[in-house]
């Protein structure tokens, strides 16, 4: 049995069915991310004075990732346009670029996650706080070693934009018996890291999902070009719409999480 209206537009909607389907899906996605953005606003506004982090994320890395995603959007459009112009080889080239860019985005994001998960805030028995990246944490050893600095007040850790002085990092050896609390900057650290990991994690899952579909169309799915090129072009368009939406979400995530 043939699936109806995969190429020809439906008379009542004027569109092929997959296009209506993807837009309905994207509409639900707007509400999903909208709810999380709403949570972000409430968490930020509800945070005590001076306790919402600023400057915790690396702006040059975030900017680079934004440029990577924007570039992947133009390669996606060019891949679809190549199909429209009957240039299959160019389609293959542009979608290969999209896949490489998607992989680059995920790799950069993984690097950022690793940086946060190896960054620790350690409260000592004397009230001092040691903050920095873990160097050695052997459970059998009676001390842990981090590369960081001491602060007297937790508040000093929150606004890194305001702290104009560069704090030199040094290797700190902390006796395990003196450690009262030790927490990495994972989602459990505070409400900022929780919403940061939730928003960017969900977005990264979308990038991976989109890349899998694009990878299928670039690889085994591209056989359809020989038998039904118009239907194949429509598939490329629909996957492209999803990819642009992923780009669109990042356009808001970047300033909200990295810059403001």
């Amino acid at each position, binding site marked *: 049995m043939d699936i109806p209206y995969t190429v020809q537009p439906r008379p009542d*909607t*004027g*569109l092929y069915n997959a*296009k*209506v389907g993807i*837009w*309905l899906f994207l*509409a639900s996605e*707007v*509400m999903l991310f*909208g*709810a999380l*953005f*709403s949570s972000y*606003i*409430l968490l930020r*506004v*509800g945070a*005590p*004075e001076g306790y919402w982090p600023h400057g915790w994320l690396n*702006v040059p890395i975030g*900017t680079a990732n*934004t*440029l990577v995603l*924007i*570039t992947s*959007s*133009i390669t*996606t*459009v*060019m891949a679809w*346009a190549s199909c*429209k*112009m*009957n240039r299959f080889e160019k389609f293959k080239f542009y979608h290969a670029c999209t896949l490489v860019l998607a992989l680059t985005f995920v790799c950069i994001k993984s690097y950022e996650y690793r940086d946060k998960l190896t960054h620790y805030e350690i409260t000592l028995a004397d009230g001092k706080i040691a903050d920095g990246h873990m160097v050695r944490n052997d459970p059998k050893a009676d001390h842990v070693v981090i590369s960081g600095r001491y602060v007297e007040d937790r508040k000093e850790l929150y606004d890194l934009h305001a702290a104009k002085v560069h704090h030199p990092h040094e290797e700190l050896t902390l006796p395990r018996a003196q450690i009262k609390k030790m927490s990495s900057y994972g989602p459990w650290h505070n409400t900022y890291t929780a919403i940061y990991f939730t928003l960017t994690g969900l977005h990264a899952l979308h990038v991976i999902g989109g890349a899998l579909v694009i990878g299928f169309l670039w690889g085994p799915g591209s056989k359809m070009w020989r038998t039904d*090129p*118009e239907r194949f*072009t429509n598939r490329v368009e629909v996957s*492209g*719409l999803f990819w*642009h*939406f992923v*780009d*669109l979400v990042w*356009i*808001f995530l*970047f*300033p*909200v999480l990295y*810059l*403001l």
Partner: protein
Amino acid sequence: MSTDHSDFSQHLRGYLFVFYALLFGTLITVGASYIPFGHKALNIAVALLIASVKAFLVAGYFMHLMSERKMIYGILASTVFFAIGLMGLTLWSMVDFPPLTTTH
């Protein structure tokens, strides 16, 4: 299947223009975040305004919303309605904190 190439090359130029505008917009967003506009809210407004322009370019040109069918506009109109409602409720909740709650 194939579309008129000269007609399409016009579109391609448009896509490239949007691409350059998005790159430029990203750099402007980063640059503007380092300029103190006097009040934090103003910095937030500027960043979100630039992000909205970039989102308009992506949705309007890359996603072809500038020349889409009425059916799609209908779907998106309901999404816009509910998304604005969601954000409206979020903002409304901010003026409804219990006494002595710190807001900033």
